[in-house]
Protein backbone atom coordinates (compact mmCIF):
# COMPACT_ATOMS: atom_id res chain seq x y z
CA UNK A 1 0.00 0.00 0.00
CA UNK A 2 2.89 2.33 0.65
CA UNK A 3 5.17 1.62 -2.29
CA UNK A 4 5.02 1.15 -6.04
CA UNK A 5 1.28 1.27 -6.30
CA UNK A 6 -1.19 3.48 -8.06
CA UNK A 7 -3.84 4.82 -5.67
CA UNK A 8 -7.31 5.93 -6.70
CA UNK A 9 -10.03 7.18 -4.36
CA UNK A 10 -13.78 7.54 -4.93
CA UNK A 11 -16.54 9.37 -3.08
CA UNK A 12 -20.19 10.16 -3.80
CA UNK A 13 -22.65 13.00 -3.28
CA UNK A 14 -26.16 12.96 -1.77
CA UNK A 15 -27.65 11.91 -5.13
CA UNK A 16 -25.25 8.90 -5.16
CA UNK A 17 -23.25 10.36 -8.04
CA UNK A 18 -19.62 9.30 -7.83
CA UNK A 19 -16.39 11.14 -8.39
CA UNK A 20 -12.83 9.87 -8.28
CA UNK A 21 -9.23 11.03 -8.34
CA UNK A 22 -5.70 9.71 -8.00
CA UNK A 23 -4.01 9.95 -4.62
CA UNK A 24 -0.40 11.08 -4.11
CA UNK A 25 0.67 8.73 -1.37
CA UNK A 26 -0.41 6.78 1.66
CA UNK A 27 0.57 6.28 5.27
CA UNK A 28 -0.84 3.99 7.91
CA UNK A 29 -1.39 5.30 11.45
CA UNK A 30 0.91 3.79 14.13
CA UNK A 31 -2.06 1.90 15.64
CA UNK A 32 -2.70 0.42 12.14
CA UNK A 33 -6.41 1.26 12.46
CA UNK A 34 -6.47 4.40 10.35
CA UNK A 35 -5.26 4.80 6.78
CA UNK A 36 -4.28 8.22 5.47
CA UNK A 37 -4.08 9.00 1.76
CA UNK A 38 -2.67 12.22 0.33
CA UNK A 39 -4.72 14.08 -2.26
CA UNK A 40 -4.19 17.19 -4.42
CA UNK A 41 -7.17 19.54 -3.81
CA UNK A 42 -6.61 21.24 -7.17
CA UNK A 43 -7.59 17.94 -8.79
CA UNK A 44 -10.46 16.77 -6.64
CA UNK A 45 -12.52 19.60 -5.14
CA UNK A 46 -15.80 17.70 -5.53
CA UNK A 47 -14.37 14.53 -4.01
CA UNK A 48 -13.15 16.39 -0.92
CA UNK A 49 -16.44 18.17 -0.48
CA UNK A 50 -18.30 14.85 -0.74
CA UNK A 51 -16.01 13.34 1.88
CA UNK A 52 -16.62 16.30 4.21
CA UNK A 53 -20.37 15.85 3.70
CA UNK A 54 -20.74 12.10 4.20
CA UNK A 55 -17.39 10.37 4.85
CA UNK A 56 -18.07 7.46 2.44
CA UNK A 57 -14.87 6.44 0.65
CA UNK A 58 -13.43 3.64 -1.47
CA UNK A 59 -9.71 3.46 -2.23
CA UNK A 60 -7.99 1.11 -4.66
CA UNK A 61 -4.28 0.30 -4.53
CA UNK A 62 -2.88 -1.39 -7.63
CA UNK A 63 0.61 -2.38 -8.70
CA UNK A 64 0.78 -1.68 -12.46
CA UNK A 65 3.34 -4.41 -13.20
CA UNK A 66 1.37 -7.25 -11.61
CA UNK A 67 -2.21 -5.89 -11.67
CA UNK A 68 -2.36 -6.96 -8.02
CA UNK A 69 -5.09 -4.80 -6.58
CA UNK A 70 -6.61 -4.15 -3.17
CA UNK A 71 -9.65 -2.06 -2.29
CA UNK A 72 -10.42 -0.53 1.11
CA UNK A 73 -13.74 1.03 2.05
CA UNK A 74 -14.67 3.32 4.91
CA UNK A 75 -17.53 5.52 6.06
CA UNK A 76 -15.73 7.94 8.36
CA UNK A 77 -13.32 9.75 6.05
CA UNK A 78 -12.16 13.18 7.20
CA UNK A 79 -10.06 15.78 5.41
CA UNK A 80 -7.07 16.96 7.44
CA UNK A 81 -4.07 19.22 6.92
CA UNK A 82 -0.88 17.44 5.89
CA UNK A 83 2.04 16.81 8.26
CA UNK A 84 5.52 18.16 7.55
CA UNK A 85 6.76 14.72 6.44
CA UNK A 86 3.90 14.15 3.99
CA UNK A 87 5.65 15.71 1.00
CA UNK A 88 8.49 13.23 1.52
CA UNK A 89 5.92 10.42 1.58
CA UNK A 90 4.40 11.75 -1.65
CA UNK A 91 7.86 11.91 -3.27
CA UNK A 92 8.71 8.34 -2.20
CA UNK A 93 5.34 7.16 -3.50
CA UNK A 94 6.05 8.89 -6.78
CA UNK A 95 9.53 7.34 -7.14
CA UNK A 96 8.36 3.83 -6.35
CA UNK A 97 5.42 4.06 -8.75
CA UNK A 98 7.63 5.53 -11.48
CA UNK A 99 10.00 2.58 -11.07
CA UNK A 100 7.16 0.11 -11.41
CA UNK A 101 5.78 1.93 -14.45
CA UNK A 102 9.26 1.97 -16.02
CA UNK A 103 9.40 -1.81 -15.58
CA UNK A 104 6.40 -2.17 -17.85
CA UNK A 105 7.65 0.22 -20.48
CA UNK A 106 6.38 3.66 -19.53
CA UNK A 107 9.03 6.36 -19.85
CA UNK A 108 10.36 8.26 -16.84
CA UNK A 109 8.94 11.52 -18.12
CA UNK A 110 5.46 10.00 -18.29
CA UNK A 111 5.53 8.71 -14.72
CA UNK A 112 7.01 11.97 -13.48
CA UNK A 113 4.25 13.96 -15.11
CA UNK A 114 1.51 11.74 -13.84
CA UNK A 115 2.46 11.99 -10.20
CA UNK A 116 3.93 15.46 -9.87
CA UNK A 117 2.67 17.40 -6.85
CA UNK A 118 3.55 20.24 -4.49
CA UNK A 119 3.23 20.48 -0.70
CA UNK A 120 0.93 23.47 -1.00
CA UNK A 121 -1.40 21.28 -3.06
CA UNK A 122 -1.73 18.37 -0.64
CA UNK A 123 -4.31 17.43 1.96
CA UNK A 124 -4.64 14.26 4.00
CA UNK A 125 -7.74 12.07 3.97
CA UNK A 126 -7.97 9.74 6.97
CA UNK A 127 -10.41 6.87 7.33
CA UNK A 128 -10.92 3.59 9.15
CA UNK A 129 -11.07 0.65 6.72
CA UNK A 130 -14.31 -1.25 7.39
CA UNK A 131 -13.83 -3.77 4.60
CA UNK A 132 -11.04 -4.91 2.31
CA UNK A 133 -11.44 -6.61 -1.07
CA UNK A 134 -9.07 -8.29 -3.48
CA UNK A 135 -9.64 -6.60 -6.85
CA UNK A 136 -6.97 -8.36 -8.86
CA UNK A 137 -8.62 -8.83 -12.27
CA UNK A 138 -10.37 -12.15 -12.71
CA UNK A 139 -13.43 -13.98 -11.48
CA UNK A 140 -12.44 -13.52 -7.81
CA UNK A 141 -12.19 -9.75 -8.11
CA UNK A 142 -14.39 -8.14 -5.50
CA UNK A 143 -14.21 -10.99 -3.01
CA UNK A 144 -13.76 -9.90 0.59
CA UNK A 145 -10.20 -10.33 1.75
CA UNK A 146 -9.61 -12.91 4.50
CA UNK A 147 -6.87 -12.80 7.09
CA UNK A 148 -3.47 -13.85 5.75
CA UNK A 149 -4.25 -13.09 2.10
Amino acid at each position, binding site marked *: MQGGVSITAAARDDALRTTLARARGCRVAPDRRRVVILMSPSQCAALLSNLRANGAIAVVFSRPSTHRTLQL*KGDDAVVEPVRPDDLAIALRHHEALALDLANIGFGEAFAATLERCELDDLVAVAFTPRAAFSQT*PGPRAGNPLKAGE
Partner: protein
Amino acid sequence: MTVTLDAIRDCLEGATPAVMATCDLDGVPNVAYLSQVHYIDPGHVALSFQFFNKTRENVLANPQATLLVIDPNTGATYRIAVRYLRTETEGPLFEHMKARLAGIASHTGMAGVFRLRGSDVYRVLEIERIPGATLPAAPRRNRLAALRTCARRLAACTDLAGLFNETLECLAQAFDVRHAMLLMFDRAGGRLYTVASLGYERSGVGSETALGAGVIGVAAREGTPIRISHMTSDYAYARAIRHGVAQQGLAGMLETEIPLPGLAQPHSQLAVPVADGQQLYGVLCVESGEDLRFTYDDEDALVTLAAQLAVAIRPLQAAADADDEPAADESARAPAAGAPVVVRHYAADGSTFVDNDYLIKGVAGSILWALVQDHVASGRVGFTNRELRLDPRIRLPDVTDNLEARLVLLQRRLVERESCVRIEKTGRGRFRLCVSRPLVLEAAR
Protein backbone atom coordinates in the same frame (compact mmCIF):
# COMPACT_ATOMS: atom_id res chain seq x y z
CA MET B 1 -12.70 24.71 -23.25
CA THR B 2 -15.15 21.84 -23.52
CA VAL B 3 -13.43 18.51 -24.08
CA THR B 4 -15.20 16.09 -26.43
CA LEU B 5 -14.70 12.34 -26.30
CA ASP B 6 -13.47 12.07 -29.89
CA ALA B 7 -10.57 14.38 -28.99
CA ILE B 8 -9.30 12.10 -26.20
CA ARG B 9 -9.62 8.68 -27.83
CA ASP B 10 -5.95 7.96 -27.20
CA CYS B 11 -6.99 7.51 -23.55
CA LEU B 12 -9.26 4.63 -24.63
CA GLU B 13 -6.65 2.59 -26.55
CA GLY B 14 -5.86 0.51 -23.50
CA ALA B 15 -2.23 1.56 -23.10
CA THR B 16 -3.13 3.03 -19.71
CA PRO B 17 -5.84 1.32 -17.66
CA ALA B 18 -9.05 3.20 -16.96
CA VAL B 19 -10.64 3.24 -13.52
CA MET B 20 -14.34 3.41 -12.73
CA ALA B 21 -16.29 4.54 -9.67
CA THR B 22 -19.83 3.33 -9.00
CA CYS B 23 -22.07 3.52 -5.95
CA ASP B 24 -24.67 1.17 -4.49
CA LEU B 25 -28.04 2.27 -3.13
CA ASP B 26 -26.65 2.26 0.44
CA GLY B 27 -24.22 4.98 -0.58
CA VAL B 28 -21.08 2.82 -0.57
CA PRO B 29 -18.76 3.80 -3.42
CA ASN B 30 -16.71 1.23 -5.33
CA VAL B 31 -13.61 1.55 -7.51
CA ALA B 32 -12.66 -0.93 -10.24
CA TYR B 33 -10.08 -1.20 -13.00
CA LEU B 34 -11.53 -1.68 -16.47
CA SER B 35 -10.22 -4.03 -19.16
CA GLN B 36 -11.65 -2.01 -21.99
CA VAL B 37 -13.34 1.32 -22.58
CA HIS B 38 -14.56 1.34 -26.16
CA TYR B 39 -15.30 4.54 -28.09
CA ILE B 40 -18.65 4.39 -29.89
CA ASP B 41 -19.24 8.05 -30.81
CA PRO B 42 -18.71 11.43 -29.12
CA GLY B 43 -21.72 10.77 -26.89
CA HIS B 44 -21.23 7.11 -25.98
CA VAL B 45 -18.72 4.57 -24.69
CA ALA B 46 -19.07 0.86 -24.10
CA LEU B 47 -17.41 -1.03 -21.24
CA SER B 48 -16.68 -4.72 -21.29
CA PHE B 49 -18.93 -6.77 -19.02
CA GLN B 50 -16.98 -9.90 -18.10
CA PHE B 51 -17.93 -10.82 -14.57
CA PHE B 52 -20.91 -10.46 -12.28
CA ASN B 53 -19.05 -8.24 -9.86
CA LYS B 54 -19.77 -5.29 -7.57
CA THR B 55 -19.45 -2.76 -10.42
CA ARG B 56 -22.06 -4.66 -12.41
CA GLU B 57 -24.39 -4.91 -9.44
CA ASN B 58 -24.00 -1.19 -8.72
CA VAL B 59 -24.67 0.12 -12.24
CA LEU B 60 -27.80 -1.99 -12.57
CA ALA B 61 -29.11 -0.42 -9.35
CA ASN B 62 -27.66 3.06 -9.82
CA PRO B 63 -26.67 3.90 -13.44
CA GLN B 64 -24.49 6.92 -12.53
CA ALA B 65 -20.76 6.27 -12.75
CA THR B 66 -17.48 8.07 -13.27
CA LEU B 67 -14.41 7.08 -15.28
CA LEU B 68 -10.83 8.23 -14.87
CA VAL B 69 -8.75 7.91 -18.05
CA ILE B 70 -5.17 8.89 -18.85
CA ASP B 71 -3.61 9.89 -22.15
CA PRO B 72 -0.68 7.47 -22.60
CA ASN B 73 1.34 10.06 -24.55
CA THR B 74 0.94 13.20 -22.48
CA GLY B 75 -0.21 11.96 -19.07
CA ALA B 76 -3.25 14.27 -19.26
CA THR B 77 -6.02 12.88 -17.05
CA TYR B 78 -9.77 13.18 -17.61
CA ARG B 79 -12.78 12.49 -15.43
CA ILE B 80 -15.81 11.34 -17.41
CA ALA B 81 -19.31 11.26 -15.91
CA VAL B 82 -21.36 8.52 -17.57
CA ARG B 83 -24.79 6.93 -17.28
CA TYR B 84 -25.46 3.25 -18.00
CA LEU B 85 -28.00 2.72 -20.82
CA ARG B 86 -28.08 -0.93 -21.94
CA THR B 87 -26.12 -4.13 -22.54
CA GLU B 88 -25.58 -5.60 -26.02
CA THR B 89 -24.78 -9.30 -26.24
CA GLU B 90 -24.48 -9.70 -30.03
CA GLY B 91 -23.93 -7.64 -33.15
CA PRO B 92 -21.13 -5.43 -34.49
CA LEU B 93 -20.28 -3.60 -31.25
CA PHE B 94 -20.20 -6.83 -29.25
CA GLU B 95 -18.06 -8.64 -31.85
CA HIS B 96 -15.61 -5.75 -32.12
CA MET B 97 -15.20 -5.58 -28.35
CA LYS B 98 -14.93 -9.37 -28.07
CA ALA B 99 -12.04 -9.35 -30.54
CA ARG B 100 -10.29 -6.48 -28.75
CA LEU B 101 -10.76 -8.20 -25.41
CA ALA B 102 -9.17 -11.39 -26.77
CA GLY B 103 -6.04 -9.34 -27.51
CA ILE B 104 -6.14 -7.64 -24.11
CA ALA B 105 -6.68 -10.97 -22.32
CA SER B 106 -3.71 -12.69 -23.89
CA HIS B 107 -1.55 -9.57 -23.37
CA THR B 108 -2.35 -9.52 -19.66
CA GLY B 109 -2.11 -13.27 -19.15
CA MET B 110 -5.89 -13.56 -18.85
CA ALA B 111 -6.62 -15.67 -21.94
CA GLY B 112 -9.34 -18.14 -21.02
CA VAL B 113 -10.32 -16.00 -18.01
CA PHE B 114 -11.62 -12.89 -19.75
CA ARG B 115 -14.75 -13.62 -21.69
CA LEU B 116 -17.07 -10.91 -22.96
CA ARG B 117 -20.57 -11.41 -21.61
CA GLY B 118 -21.83 -8.12 -22.93
CA SER B 119 -21.02 -4.62 -24.12
CA ASP B 120 -22.35 -2.15 -21.56
CA VAL B 121 -23.29 1.05 -23.36
CA TYR B 122 -23.04 4.34 -21.42
CA ARG B 123 -23.99 7.89 -22.31
CA VAL B 124 -21.21 10.42 -21.76
CA LEU B 125 -22.57 13.25 -19.62
CA GLU B 126 -19.52 15.39 -18.94
CA ILE B 127 -15.77 15.32 -19.48
CA GLU B 128 -13.50 17.21 -17.13
CA ARG B 129 -9.81 17.76 -17.76
CA ILE B 130 -8.03 17.36 -14.43
CA PRO B 131 -5.49 20.13 -13.85
CA GLY B 132 -1.88 18.97 -13.82
CA ALA B 133 1.35 19.00 -15.75
CA THR B 134 1.46 17.15 -19.08
CA LEU B 135 4.09 16.13 -21.59
CA PRO B 136 4.03 17.75 -25.01
CA ALA B 137 2.16 15.63 -27.55
CA ALA B 138 4.47 14.19 -30.21
CA PRO B 139 3.73 15.26 -33.79
CA ARG B 140 1.67 12.62 -35.52
CA ARG B 141 1.00 11.55 -39.07
CA ASN B 142 -1.92 13.45 -40.57
CA ARG B 143 -4.30 10.74 -41.66
CA LEU B 144 -6.77 13.15 -43.22
CA ALA B 145 -4.11 14.39 -45.65
CA ALA B 146 -3.11 10.79 -46.37
CA LEU B 147 -6.73 9.89 -46.99
CA ARG B 148 -7.17 12.76 -49.44
CA THR B 149 -4.18 11.55 -51.46
CA CYS B 150 -5.47 7.97 -51.45
CA ALA B 151 -9.02 8.93 -52.44
CA ARG B 152 -7.66 10.79 -55.47
CA ARG B 153 -5.45 7.85 -56.48
CA LEU B 154 -8.24 5.27 -56.15
CA ALA B 155 -10.67 7.39 -58.14
CA ALA B 156 -8.14 7.57 -60.99
CA CYS B 157 -7.94 3.78 -61.45
CA THR B 158 -9.34 2.43 -64.72
CA ASP B 159 -9.42 -1.31 -64.07
CA LEU B 160 -9.90 -3.63 -61.13
CA ALA B 161 -6.40 -5.12 -61.11
CA GLY B 162 -4.93 -1.61 -61.03
CA LEU B 163 -7.33 -0.59 -58.27
CA PHE B 164 -6.26 -3.51 -56.08
CA ASN B 165 -2.58 -2.64 -56.53
CA GLU B 166 -3.17 1.06 -55.97
CA THR B 167 -5.05 0.37 -52.72
CA LEU B 168 -2.11 -1.53 -51.25
CA GLU B 169 0.42 0.99 -52.52
CA CYS B 170 -1.61 3.79 -50.93
CA LEU B 171 -1.56 1.96 -47.58
CA ALA B 172 2.21 1.55 -47.82
CA GLN B 173 3.04 5.06 -48.96
CA ALA B 174 0.48 7.20 -47.18
CA PHE B 175 -0.08 5.19 -44.01
CA ASP B 176 3.28 3.42 -43.62
CA VAL B 177 1.51 0.06 -43.51
CA ARG B 178 3.94 -2.82 -44.13
CA HIS B 179 1.59 -5.81 -44.27
CA ALA B 180 -1.84 -5.82 -45.86
CA MET B 181 -4.19 -8.02 -47.81
CA LEU B 182 -7.33 -7.51 -49.82
CA LEU B 183 -9.96 -10.24 -50.03
CA MET B 184 -13.09 -10.31 -52.15
CA PHE B 185 -16.36 -11.82 -50.99
CA ASP B 186 -17.84 -14.92 -52.64
CA ARG B 187 -21.46 -14.56 -51.55
CA ALA B 188 -22.64 -17.97 -52.77
CA GLY B 189 -19.74 -19.80 -51.14
CA GLY B 190 -19.83 -17.71 -47.96
CA ARG B 191 -16.06 -17.25 -48.25
CA LEU B 192 -13.52 -14.58 -48.97
CA TYR B 193 -10.67 -15.04 -51.43
CA THR B 194 -7.42 -13.12 -51.48
CA VAL B 195 -6.81 -11.04 -54.62
CA ALA B 196 -3.84 -8.93 -53.54
CA SER B 197 -1.41 -8.63 -50.64
CA LEU B 198 1.52 -6.53 -49.48
CA GLY B 199 4.67 -7.41 -47.58
CA TYR B 200 4.38 -11.19 -47.18
CA GLU B 201 6.85 -13.83 -48.25
CA ARG B 202 4.11 -15.45 -50.34
CA SER B 203 1.31 -13.37 -51.80
CA GLY B 204 -1.40 -15.87 -50.80
CA VAL B 205 -3.44 -14.81 -53.83
CA GLY B 206 -6.24 -17.37 -54.23
CA SER B 207 -6.26 -18.36 -50.55
CA GLU B 208 -9.65 -18.43 -48.87
CA THR B 209 -11.11 -17.82 -45.45
CA ALA B 210 -14.59 -18.54 -44.17
CA LEU B 211 -17.14 -15.94 -43.17
CA GLY B 212 -16.86 -15.59 -39.40
CA ALA B 213 -13.30 -16.95 -39.08
CA GLY B 214 -10.54 -14.72 -37.70
CA VAL B 215 -10.54 -10.92 -37.82
CA ILE B 216 -11.28 -10.92 -41.56
CA GLY B 217 -14.20 -13.33 -41.40
CA VAL B 218 -15.76 -11.60 -38.39
CA ALA B 219 -15.39 -8.15 -40.00
CA ALA B 220 -17.16 -9.49 -43.10
CA ARG B 221 -19.92 -11.28 -41.23
CA GLU B 222 -20.70 -8.41 -38.85
CA GLY B 223 -20.07 -5.56 -41.28
CA THR B 224 -17.86 -3.83 -38.73
CA PRO B 225 -14.18 -3.04 -38.43
CA ILE B 226 -12.34 -5.44 -36.12
CA ARG B 227 -9.22 -4.09 -34.47
CA ILE B 228 -6.90 -6.01 -32.14
CA SER B 229 -3.95 -4.31 -30.47
CA HIS B 230 -2.11 -7.28 -28.95
CA MET B 231 -1.28 -10.75 -30.14
CA THR B 232 -4.00 -13.35 -29.55
CA SER B 233 -4.51 -16.87 -30.76
CA ASP B 234 -8.31 -16.51 -30.60
CA TYR B 235 -8.58 -14.78 -33.96
CA ALA B 236 -6.07 -16.86 -35.90
CA TYR B 237 -8.44 -19.76 -36.55
CA ALA B 238 -7.38 -20.48 -40.12
CA ARG B 239 -3.72 -20.76 -39.29
CA ALA B 240 -4.28 -22.59 -36.02
CA ILE B 241 -6.45 -25.23 -37.65
CA ARG B 242 -4.02 -25.72 -40.49
CA HIS B 243 -1.13 -26.06 -38.06
CA GLY B 244 -3.01 -28.69 -36.05
CA VAL B 245 -3.89 -30.73 -39.12
CA ALA B 246 -0.34 -30.51 -40.46
CA GLN B 247 1.00 -31.82 -37.17
CA GLN B 248 -1.29 -34.83 -37.41
CA GLY B 249 0.40 -35.84 -40.66
CA LEU B 250 -2.60 -34.99 -42.78
CA ALA B 251 -0.79 -32.30 -44.71
CA GLY B 252 -1.29 -34.18 -47.97
CA MET B 253 -5.03 -33.64 -47.76
CA LEU B 254 -4.49 -29.92 -47.85
CA GLU B 255 -2.69 -29.71 -51.14
CA THR B 256 -5.55 -27.73 -52.63
CA GLU B 257 -5.24 -25.13 -49.85
CA ILE B 258 -3.29 -21.98 -50.60
CA PRO B 259 -2.08 -20.64 -47.23
CA LEU B 260 -3.58 -17.30 -46.23
CA PRO B 261 -0.96 -14.60 -46.22
CA GLY B 262 -0.38 -13.07 -42.82
CA LEU B 263 2.20 -12.60 -40.12
CA ALA B 264 2.85 -15.69 -37.99
CA GLN B 265 2.48 -13.57 -34.86
CA PRO B 266 0.57 -10.39 -35.60
CA HIS B 267 0.43 -8.09 -32.57
CA SER B 268 -1.87 -5.56 -34.20
CA GLN B 269 -4.56 -6.34 -36.75
CA LEU B 270 -7.26 -4.21 -38.32
CA ALA B 271 -9.81 -5.68 -40.74
CA VAL B 272 -12.33 -3.40 -42.42
CA PRO B 273 -15.30 -4.41 -44.60
CA VAL B 274 -15.27 -3.03 -48.14
CA ALA B 275 -18.95 -2.30 -48.62
CA ASP B 276 -21.17 0.00 -50.61
CA GLY B 277 -24.44 0.42 -48.78
CA GLN B 278 -25.62 -3.09 -47.96
CA GLN B 279 -23.43 -4.80 -50.54
CA LEU B 280 -20.23 -6.35 -49.22
CA TYR B 281 -17.41 -6.53 -51.77
CA GLY B 282 -14.66 -7.78 -49.52
CA VAL B 283 -12.36 -7.01 -46.61
CA LEU B 284 -9.19 -4.96 -46.35
CA CYS B 285 -6.87 -6.14 -43.58
CA VAL B 286 -3.64 -4.60 -42.25
CA GLU B 287 -1.24 -6.16 -39.74
CA SER B 288 1.83 -5.28 -37.72
CA GLY B 289 4.32 -7.03 -35.47
CA GLU B 290 4.02 -4.13 -32.97
CA ASP B 291 1.50 -3.83 -30.15
CA LEU B 292 -0.97 -0.94 -30.34
CA ARG B 293 0.07 -0.10 -33.91
CA PHE B 294 -3.39 0.81 -35.21
CA THR B 295 -5.41 3.45 -33.39
CA TYR B 296 -8.96 4.76 -33.54
CA ASP B 297 -7.69 7.31 -36.07
CA ASP B 298 -6.26 4.52 -38.24
CA GLU B 299 -9.57 2.71 -37.98
CA ASP B 300 -11.46 5.82 -39.13
CA ALA B 301 -9.02 6.33 -42.00
CA LEU B 302 -9.19 2.71 -43.16
CA VAL B 303 -12.98 2.58 -42.92
CA THR B 304 -13.15 5.68 -45.11
CA LEU B 305 -10.54 4.32 -47.52
CA ALA B 306 -12.51 1.06 -47.77
CA ALA B 307 -15.67 3.05 -48.56
CA GLN B 308 -13.76 4.83 -51.34
CA LEU B 309 -12.55 1.48 -52.58
CA ALA B 310 -16.12 0.11 -52.70
CA VAL B 311 -17.29 3.16 -54.64
CA ALA B 312 -14.44 2.62 -57.10
CA ILE B 313 -15.08 -1.13 -57.48
CA ARG B 314 -18.70 -0.86 -58.59
CA PRO B 315 -18.24 1.01 -61.93
CA LEU B 316 -15.06 -0.92 -62.81
CA GLN B 317 -16.92 -4.16 -62.28
CA ALA B 318 -19.81 -2.98 -64.51
CA ALA B 319 -17.46 -1.54 -67.14
CA ALA B 320 -15.62 -4.85 -67.36
CA ASP B 321 -18.74 -6.41 -68.88
CA ALA B 322 -19.75 -3.48 -71.08
CA ASP B 323 -18.19 -4.46 -74.36
CA ASP B 324 -20.77 -6.05 -76.66
CA GLU B 325 -18.66 -6.88 -79.69
CA PRO B 326 -17.69 -10.50 -80.18
CA ALA B 327 -14.04 -11.24 -79.53
CA ALA B 328 -11.85 -10.95 -82.59
CA ASP B 329 -10.52 -14.24 -83.85
CA GLU B 330 -6.88 -14.31 -82.93
CA SER B 331 -6.32 -18.00 -83.39
CA ALA B 332 -3.64 -17.44 -86.01
CA ARG B 333 -0.98 -16.66 -83.42
CA ALA B 334 2.24 -18.57 -82.95
CA PRO B 335 1.46 -22.21 -82.08
CA ALA B 336 2.40 -23.68 -78.72
CA ALA B 337 5.57 -25.74 -78.70
CA GLY B 338 7.39 -28.18 -76.46
CA ALA B 339 6.24 -31.14 -74.38
CA PRO B 340 2.47 -31.29 -73.71
CA VAL B 341 1.14 -30.20 -70.33
CA VAL B 342 -1.78 -31.92 -68.60
CA VAL B 343 -4.55 -29.67 -67.27
CA ARG B 344 -6.76 -31.65 -64.88
CA HIS B 345 -10.08 -30.33 -63.63
CA TYR B 346 -12.31 -31.72 -60.89
CA ALA B 347 -15.91 -30.75 -61.61
CA ALA B 348 -16.96 -31.27 -57.98
CA ASP B 349 -15.15 -28.21 -56.60
CA GLY B 350 -13.58 -26.70 -59.71
CA SER B 351 -10.06 -27.49 -58.47
CA THR B 352 -7.63 -27.36 -61.35
CA PHE B 353 -4.10 -28.73 -61.60
CA VAL B 354 -1.49 -27.95 -64.24
CA ASP B 355 1.03 -30.80 -64.52
CA ASN B 356 -0.04 -32.02 -61.04
CA ASP B 357 0.64 -28.58 -59.61
CA TYR B 358 -2.43 -27.19 -57.82
CA LEU B 359 -3.50 -23.92 -59.38
CA ILE B 360 -6.95 -22.81 -58.22
CA LYS B 361 -10.44 -24.05 -57.46
CA GLY B 362 -14.02 -22.77 -57.44
CA VAL B 363 -15.31 -20.34 -60.03
CA ALA B 364 -11.80 -19.30 -61.11
CA GLY B 365 -10.96 -22.98 -61.75
CA SER B 366 -14.09 -23.43 -63.84
CA ILE B 367 -13.29 -20.30 -65.86
CA LEU B 368 -9.86 -21.62 -66.72
CA TRP B 369 -11.32 -25.01 -67.64
CA ALA B 370 -13.82 -23.42 -70.06
CA LEU B 371 -11.08 -21.30 -71.64
CA VAL B 372 -8.66 -24.17 -72.24
CA GLN B 373 -11.49 -26.39 -73.55
CA ASP B 374 -12.34 -23.81 -76.21
CA HIS B 375 -8.68 -23.27 -76.94
CA VAL B 376 -7.92 -26.95 -77.45
CA ALA B 377 -11.08 -27.52 -79.53
CA SER B 378 -10.70 -24.58 -81.92
CA GLY B 379 -7.39 -22.86 -81.21
CA ARG B 380 -9.32 -19.88 -79.92
CA VAL B 381 -7.46 -17.26 -77.83
CA GLY B 382 -9.76 -14.20 -77.67
CA PHE B 383 -12.53 -14.06 -75.04
CA THR B 384 -14.88 -11.55 -73.41
CA ASN B 385 -16.19 -11.18 -69.88
CA ARG B 386 -19.73 -11.06 -71.22
CA GLU B 387 -19.61 -14.51 -72.79
CA LEU B 388 -18.05 -15.98 -69.63
CA ARG B 389 -20.90 -14.58 -67.59
CA LEU B 390 -23.38 -16.39 -69.86
CA ASP B 391 -21.34 -19.60 -70.15
CA PRO B 392 -23.26 -22.48 -68.50
CA ARG B 393 -20.00 -24.36 -67.82
CA ILE B 394 -18.87 -21.72 -65.33
CA ARG B 395 -22.01 -21.47 -63.22
CA LEU B 396 -21.36 -18.03 -61.81
CA PRO B 397 -23.16 -17.86 -58.46
CA ASP B 398 -25.29 -14.82 -59.37
CA VAL B 399 -25.43 -11.82 -61.64
CA THR B 400 -23.84 -9.53 -59.10
CA ASP B 401 -20.83 -11.81 -58.79
CA ASN B 402 -17.56 -10.04 -59.26
CA LEU B 403 -16.38 -11.91 -62.35
CA GLU B 404 -13.64 -9.39 -63.03
CA ALA B 405 -12.15 -9.96 -59.56
CA ARG B 406 -12.06 -13.71 -60.26
CA LEU B 407 -10.25 -13.07 -63.55
CA VAL B 408 -7.70 -10.91 -61.72
CA LEU B 409 -7.23 -13.73 -59.23
CA LEU B 410 -6.82 -16.34 -61.98
CA GLN B 411 -4.42 -14.14 -63.91
CA ARG B 412 -2.26 -13.61 -60.80
CA ARG B 413 -2.21 -17.28 -59.83
CA LEU B 414 -1.08 -18.27 -63.34
CA VAL B 415 1.79 -15.77 -63.13
CA GLU B 416 2.78 -16.87 -59.62
CA ARG B 417 2.79 -20.56 -60.59
CA GLU B 418 4.85 -19.68 -63.70
CA SER B 419 2.28 -21.57 -65.71
CA CYS B 420 2.50 -22.14 -69.46
CA VAL B 421 -1.00 -20.64 -69.62
CA ARG B 422 -1.47 -16.88 -69.11
CA ILE B 423 -4.27 -14.37 -69.37
CA GLU B 424 -3.64 -10.93 -70.85
CA LYS B 425 -6.13 -8.11 -70.89
CA THR B 426 -6.61 -6.78 -74.40
CA GLY B 427 -9.26 -4.16 -73.78
CA ARG B 428 -12.33 -3.34 -71.77
CA GLY B 429 -14.08 -6.62 -70.99
CA ARG B 430 -11.84 -8.69 -73.25
CA PHE B 431 -8.69 -10.71 -72.81
CA ARG B 432 -6.42 -13.17 -74.56
CA LEU B 433 -5.42 -16.68 -73.49
CA CYS B 434 -1.69 -17.19 -74.08
CA VAL B 435 -0.62 -20.84 -74.18
CA SER B 436 3.08 -21.58 -74.67
CA ARG B 437 2.91 -25.40 -74.67
CA PRO B 438 0.41 -27.91 -76.09
CA LEU B 439 -2.35 -28.78 -73.60
CA VAL B 440 -3.85 -32.17 -72.78
CA LEU B 441 -7.15 -31.91 -70.91
CA GLU B 442 -8.29 -34.39 -68.27
CA ALA B 443 -11.78 -34.10 -66.78
CA ALA B 444 -11.62 -35.82 -63.38
CA ARG B 445 -14.45 -36.83 -61.06
